């Protein structure tokens, strides 16, 4: 049997990981197009699919998506901020499934670090007296 190799671009794997990628791309495009409702919807989809996947299996892409989804929700609007809070709570629940406190804290860190980083950056820029670049979004 001959193995046929298709160009990588056309290998469309419609798994949940790729759905998450598409949702993130749609959210970013909506931000660029100044479409608040669409951006909030797609960002929430992106975050929701990421956390749903993480709840079922811990894969590299899934954890990365979870980590990045929280700051994305944080910068959009008060509504998405609320979703971010709920997902932060979900992060704690997911982390608690690990064995031992070191592993639990480390797991939590890999989920919320980007969010902490965003808050740290904002505090630093405030301290310097520079404007927060994401203020002009929908918040």
């Amino acid at each position, binding site marked *: 049997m001959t193995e046929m190799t298709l160009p990588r671009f056309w290998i469309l794997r419609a798994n949940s990981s790729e759905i998450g990628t598409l949702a993130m791309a749609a959210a970013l495009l909506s931000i660029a197009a100044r479409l608040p409702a669409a951006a909030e919807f797609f960002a929430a989809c992106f975050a929701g699919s990421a956390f749903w996947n993480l709840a079922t299996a811990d894969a590299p892409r899934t954890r990365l998506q979870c980590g990045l989804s929280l700051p994305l929700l944080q910068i959009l609007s008060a509504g998405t901020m609320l979703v971010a809070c709920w997902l932060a709570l979900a992060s704690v629940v997911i982390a608690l499934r690990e064995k031992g406190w070191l*592993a639990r804290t480390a797991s939590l860190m*890999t989920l919320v670090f980007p969010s902490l980083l965003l808050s740290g950056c904002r505090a630093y820029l405030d301290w310097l007296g520079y404007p927060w670049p994401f203020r002009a979004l929908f918040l």
Partner: protein
Amino acid sequence: MDGCRMEDVLKHGSSQDVLSASQEPIGRRLVEAGLVTEERFAAALEIQRSTGSPLGHILVAQGWLRPFDYYRHLAVHHGMRFVNLVLDPPDSDLFEQDKYGDYATLLYLPWKRDTDGLVVAVTEPDEELLRKLRQQYGRSVSFVLTSRLDVLWTVQRLASRQLALDSVFRRAMRDPDHSAMHVLTRSQKVTIALMFLATAACLYLDAAATLAAGNSAVGLFLLCCLILRIVLVWAGSGTLYQSRTTKEELDALEPKTLPVYSILIPLYRDAAVVPTLARALRSLDYPKSKLDIKLILEGDDPETIEACKRAGLEGCVELIVVPPSQPRTKPKALNYALSFARGQLLTIYDAEDVPEPDQLKRAVLAFRKAPWDVVCLQARLNYFNWGENWLTRMFTLEYSLWFDWYLPGLEALGIPIPLGGTSNHFRAEVVRAVGGWDPFNVTEDADLGIRFTMSRWRVGVLDSTTYEEANNEVWNWIRQRSRWVKGYIQTWLVYMRHPAVTLSRLGWKGFLGFHAFIGGAFLGPLAFPPLALMFLVWLITRTEMFDPLFSPATLAISLALLLAGNGLLIYFHMLAAWMRRRPILVFCSLQLPAYYFLMSIAAWRAMWQLVTKPHYWEKTEHGLTSVSAYDRDDFASVLDTPGQ
């Protein structure tokens, strides 16, 4: 053993009757001679049923029979004369220097010329080989049988000068434009001189504007490097590139279908790690009769040679001794040994490496599943002594991100992959076709990865890990890192001799990725000290001295790099540590900026060495760790699967 018959056979060579083997099976003959026990004979037959390898090869490869005894009895079995090439060496006039590769891989040697014609010594009366030799030397050629080790030893003795010359200059003569023999070409020297002059003139005319432009350019380049790394992490985390082979596929692999696998292991002043190496090799889950392991030793390193002899290694391991010559580099040793490699697939391990036992099988499987143009698979590298001290923890973090996330990302995006120094699995004929390794490049592995892509071949990543010993001493680490950075600069300079050619071969994506990944690997650490110093001085003094260097755009880029850039890189290292199931390293990632400082010291040292000693190979000391890969519970279960 029938003594009279042996005497007869030893007196006469054989020409036509070589294939008329005795009716008595060779294995039974060996048992009757008391050389092999019944139990081992039965075990060898069992292995033969599964692997299809000749029984004698199995017995020798398992270390159950001395090669000399096997070949002596094989000669009797086939009615051929047996010759010991050490006691009865071949006529050196018959030895053709340009054919040493054939002699070493096909295992034959023109031995003597007698009244009837040429007598050729072979190690196997293989019909195909004998037909080829008759075509080559004429119908009157006759054959005697000798030992494989005798042929290898004799080839090394008679062709040592030619082998040494070829291993140093073959690559440079074939493609001088892509050899690091000269650090800079004439046109590169002129370009660099002109750039220096232009910069000096600009500084003279308007120092502030020149420095501001330089600051912006560096910031912009580092931003591109950061963006590439973000994209790499995203692409590399995809499941498609994280696992190529499954446990079920491995279990279904037929041992009979496995190819001969060559393993090249260069050793120099590595006597201390030979026992660990021997254990790692014995743990490999691959039929020993299909392994062709070469320990490549330096002629002036008697301690390691002695340690290898004492290790009691099996018959599938051969010692290749490289005569001392300059440049004293690992790629030169690899080129030397490449001439002796008989496998269809080939890999390289370092002396202190502990590969996962099923790595070779995974590579075979991955090559079968990969498109035909994938000629190399880089296994993941990580460290078994990761928790030993701060340095080993940082080093492990760096490797976890590099090999588990960045390299799969490079593969996914079609950007050239700079190979790591070990556990690269190749299709052997392609390595020969591209001329082997560049002995003047001190990161010959990175160079080879780029060269494959330049030659329109592809490099992939193998989902199997080799555990190495992380440097646990700062000075030893700096020496090693200096060499790596120097090699990366050499590689970058080599492929920038003809940028248009590189662009046309790599395409825009590959070309930009090459600059951002290879260039970023040395420009980032070089730029870190001045940028960090500027930031610290500003933070403490709030001086306005640096304001002219930062336009609003440059300031935004610099802030993004400082905050988001460093933060994201720390985050990526956290993820890499987590996916390796090492939670303590997640927190250690926060200390990475201190590690960057060490990298900068190494990078500046590399720049200095590039000018003063461009081809000097700084040997990394191994065996300094007090941790053994096999002492740790988490590794032992994975690594100690007994091989066949």
